[in-house]
């Protein structure tokens, strides 16, 4: 994978690998395109596409029970879909690493993305998830590493919110 200046995906992929992530669950998002592709191509990882994000929380609970760390990739709209399921991870103290690409903020063109995008951080916080933001492409990787340590070593639910500013103004739907 060619390293472009803002190619945080390659760095995050390397970190997931170094942290021993074996199961990567995702609902696709444009901002995660390269990361998903890299995970799918990696033999040591099982990439699991989901119909809805809450499946991913339960999947990774099972993965941890079976001895495999995992990561959940989603867009911020998916945060709204996982709230009740987060209760399992919180109550059993399952490590949970969530990488969220943000919509409904910086330069958003779709008004329907605003409500969930603006509520994402509050909702995660209310559910007991530690939130770490990355709004600079150069900071995404170190934030992901920090979150992985807090999740897998600290036994916590940690979400990295990758700002829409990182992903850029481009309308990815075109």
């Amino acid at each position, binding site marked *: 994978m060619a390293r472009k200046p803002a190619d945080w995906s390659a760095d995050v992929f390397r970190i997931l690998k170094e942290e021993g992530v074996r199961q990567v669950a995702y609902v696709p998002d444009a901002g995660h395109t390269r990361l998903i592709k890299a995970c799918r191509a990696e033999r040591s990882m099982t990439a699991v596409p989901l119909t809805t994000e809450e499946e991913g929380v339960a999947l990774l609970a099972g993965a941890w029970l079976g001895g495999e760390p995992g990561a959940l990739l989603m867009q911020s709209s998916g945060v709204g879909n996982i709230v009740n399921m987060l209760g399992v991870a919180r109550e059993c103290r399952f490590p949970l690493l969530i990488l969220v690409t943000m919509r409904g903020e910086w330069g958003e063109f779709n008004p329907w993305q605003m*409500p969930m995008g603006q509520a994402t951080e509050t909702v995660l916080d209310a559910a007991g998830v530690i939130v770490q933001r990355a709004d600079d492409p150069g900071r995404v990787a170190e934030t992901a590493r920090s979150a992985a340590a807090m999740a897998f070593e600290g036994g916590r639910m940690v979400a990295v919110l990758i700002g829409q500013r990182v992903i850029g103004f481009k309308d*990815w739907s075109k």
Partner: protein
Amino acid sequence: MATKKKEPALLRRAVVKKILAKRGDAAVVTGIGNAIHDVFAAGDDDRNMYLSGIMGGASMVAFGVALAQPRRRVIVITGDGELLAGIGSLATIGVEKPKNLSIVVIDNQAYGATGNQHTHTARGVDLVGIAKASGFERAEQVSKASELDGMIDAIYRGDGPYFAVVKVSTRSGPRGDAPKDGTLLARRFRAAVAGE
């Protein structure tokens, strides 16, 4: 289940345009993503509700319209990824069996808005089988131009709920500027469909 190689794959914009040419007074609810552009490209209409959010919710929104407007045909035009995100709605609708609801899935087997990642339909998931198991007595899949007329007839005639999957190419087409303002869409839809 895969599209036959011999015939060129159907193009979504053309398929939806053909379907909506026969709409009469039908109300149309779209799923998020490319379905919005399919329906808008076929001709904007006050009876169109474009859902630019709530992935997985299009069929249930349309079901609500169908219950409220039992004399009017209500059509869902949505994508495979959107339908899969709310697949349990098929069971909820299958139980109630609204006679005036037709769900049309424009199935390109990919999440088109986010980079064309495969959806589960690319890996053998049979949406028609799931719809039948959910209680839809009329459910079918088409992949050829020659099958479209029969499907279009079924969308608008006979007792629903009717469920159709149209296998299409991942190629889409130009995107228009469909209205996105939710309050505007809701108001004009209610005025046109409910007279309120």
